[in-house]
C-alpha cells in the first residue's frame, strides 16, 4: 500500500488533490481511499489530506502517520524536521518551491524534490501570484516522479472532478509532468 500526505493551506486545493489522485488510481483498477484530516475546515489554515492506494481492499482507516509520498503545496507551511517525522524512511517529499533545498533536510533515505509549481499554475491563470492554486500542477509532478499513476489517468480525473478552469488545470498538470525530472 502506498500512502500519500498532502500539506496545503485552506483554499489551495489539498483535499481536492487527494481526491483527484484517488480517482486517477481508481481508474487504473486500484483500490483507493482519500480523505481530509478529520477536523474543522477553515480557509487559510493549514490543511492536511491523505490518499491511500493499494492493489487490495484497503482496511486501514484514519490519518496516515507515515507517508510514502509527501506533497507540499505551500513551502511556508512546515519546517522540514516536522515533515520528516511523517515520512517513511524511503519516502519522497515533493515541495512546491522556487528555492534550492539545502542538503541538511534529509533523514535516512528520504528523497526531497523541489519543483516550482506556482509559476506553472500562475502562467495557466490558476490563482494569483500571491495565492497560486497548485494542486493539479503538483499532481502532474507526482505522476512523473512517483510513477504511481499515469498522467492520462490524472488528466481524466481532473476533467471529471473539476468544473472551473478545467482546461487550465489540465494544461498545468501536463506541463508540470513534462518539466519534472525523474
Amino acid at each position, binding site marked *: 500500500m502506498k500512502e500519500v500526505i498532502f500539506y496545503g493551506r485552506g483554499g489551495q486545493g489539498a483535499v481536492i488533490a487527494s481526491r483527484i489522485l484517488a480517482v486517477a488510481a481508481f481508474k487504473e483498477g*486500484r483500490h483507493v481511499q482519500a*480523505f481530509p484530516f478529520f477536523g474543522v475546515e477553515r480557509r487559510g489554515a493549514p490543511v492536511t489530506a491523505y490518499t491511500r492506494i493499494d492493489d487490495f481492499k484497503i*482496511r486501514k*482507516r484514519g490519518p496516515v502517520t507515515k507517508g510514502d509520498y509527501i506533497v507540499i503545496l505551500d513551502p511556508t507551511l512546515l519546517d522540514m524536521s516536522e515533515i520528516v517525522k511523517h515520512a517513511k524512511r524511503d519516502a519522497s517529499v515533493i515541495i512546491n518551491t522556487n528555492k534550492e533545498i539545502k542538503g541538511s533536510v534529509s533523514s535516512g533515505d528520504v528523497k526531497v524534490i523541489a519543483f516550482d509549481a506556482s509559476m506553472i499554475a500562475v502562467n495557466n491563470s490558476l490563482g494569483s501570484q500571491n495565492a497560486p492554486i497548485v494542486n493539479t500542477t503538483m499532481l502532474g509532478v507526482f505522476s512523473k516522479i512517483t510513477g504511481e499513476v499515469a498522467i492520462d489517468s490524472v488528466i481524466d480525473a481532473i476533467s471529471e472532478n473539476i468544473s472551473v478552469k478545467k482546461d487550465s488545470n489540465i494544461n498545468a498538470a501536463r506541463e508540470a509532468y513534462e518539466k519534472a525530472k525523474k
Partner: protein
Amino acid sequence: MHRRVSCQSDQIRKREKIKRMADITKKVVTGNHAVSYGALLSRAEVIAAYPITPQTEVVEKLSEMVANGELRAKFINVESEHSAMAACIGASATGARAFTATSSQGLALMHELLHWATGARLPIVMANINRSMGPPWNIWSEQTDSLAQRDTGWLQFYCENNQEIIDTIIQAYRVSETVYLPAMVVLDAFYHSHTMEGVEIPNQSAIDAFLPQYNPIYKLDVNEPHTFGGLTSPEWYYELRYKIQSAMDKSIKVIKDTAREYEKITHRKYGLLEEYRTEDADMLIVAAGALSETVKEAVDLLRQKRKTRIGLLRIRTFRPFPKEDIKKILKNVEIVGVIDRNISFGNEGIFFQEIKSALCNEKIKPGIYGFIAGLGGRDVMVEDIIGVADILAKPGNKKDIVWVGAKI
C-alpha cells in the same frame, strides 16, 4: 483473502481494469455520498433533513439530485431534526417512501418522533452518522448517539465501508417495508462520512425489480378515511406493543432473505453478523462499524506473527439483536473481548451488555470482557487491538472493563 502477495498485483490490476471498463457504474465517493446514492437508487419520494456536521454532504448531494431531476422527490426544508422526522412521518403515512439523515444531537432531538414512527408502523429509512454527544463539543465518531435510541423500535444496521452503506440503505427499505418498522443505517463520522472509496453503484433497473414501489396496507387517503394513532386504552395498547416485538422477531428472517435476494443482483452478501476468521478461533473480538476493519488487520497480523487463533465477530444488525446466531458462534470460543466505541455511564459498553445478556442462560459460555475504545473519534490503531488481545490472552483475573488507550 489472506492478502498481500505482491507478485500477483500486476495481474490483478489488469483484470480489474478490464472489469471496470466494462462497468461504468463504479465511482469514488465519500460515505456521505454513498448514503445519497443509496437513497437515489431506492427512489426515495420525500426527503426532509436538517444539516449537521458530519451529515451535511448527504443532504447537499440529495438536494442537488432533486434539483437536477435525477431524483424525482419532494425535498422539504425544515427548521430542526424534530420537524424533519415529523415530515417523514407524515410523508410515510401517505404511502410515500421517506428518507432523512442526521447525526448526534440531531438524532437526540428526534427521539420523541422515533417512537412515533415505530408505533405508527412507518417504514422510514434514516442514515445516522455516528458522532459523539456534546458537551464538550466534538464532531468525531462515537456510537453512543444511535445506541441511545436502542429502545425506540428502529431496526439498526452498522456499516463497515462505503460499499456496504449503499447496499444497506437499499436493503433497509425492503426489510422495513416488509415488516413495517423504520430502519436506521449507521456509519462512522469521518472514517466513513468524509472518506472517499471506490464503490460499485448498482444498476437502477435491477434495484427497481428488487425494491418495487411502496404500497402499504393503510395510508392517508381522502377516499378511504381512517383514524391514525387514536387513543388506545390499556385494553389493547399492550397487544399493539406485542405486534411490534413480533415484527422485530420476524425481521431476522426477512433480513436474511433480503440479503440472499440482494446477493443475486450484486454478488455481495450481508447478513445479521459477519464472521472473520472465526472457523478455528478460540479468541474472538466483537466490534461494529468502521472499527471492525482495524480489528481485521489486527487479526491477520496476530495470526501471521504469533499464530494466535483469533477472529472477529462483527455486529451488523444491532436491532433486531441476532441472539441465536451469536450464541452459536460464541459457544465454541474460550474468550471474547467486546470493543465498544460507546458507553452507558454507570455500567459498561452497550454491545458488551447485549452480548453478555444473550449468553446468560447458556451452560457453556466463554469468558467475556469489555473494552471501551475510540470515544469522541480517538483513533483506534491496530496496536490497540493487539493490546486487547494481549489482555485477553493473559491468564488470571481481568478487569471487567478496560479503557483502551485512555490517558488514565
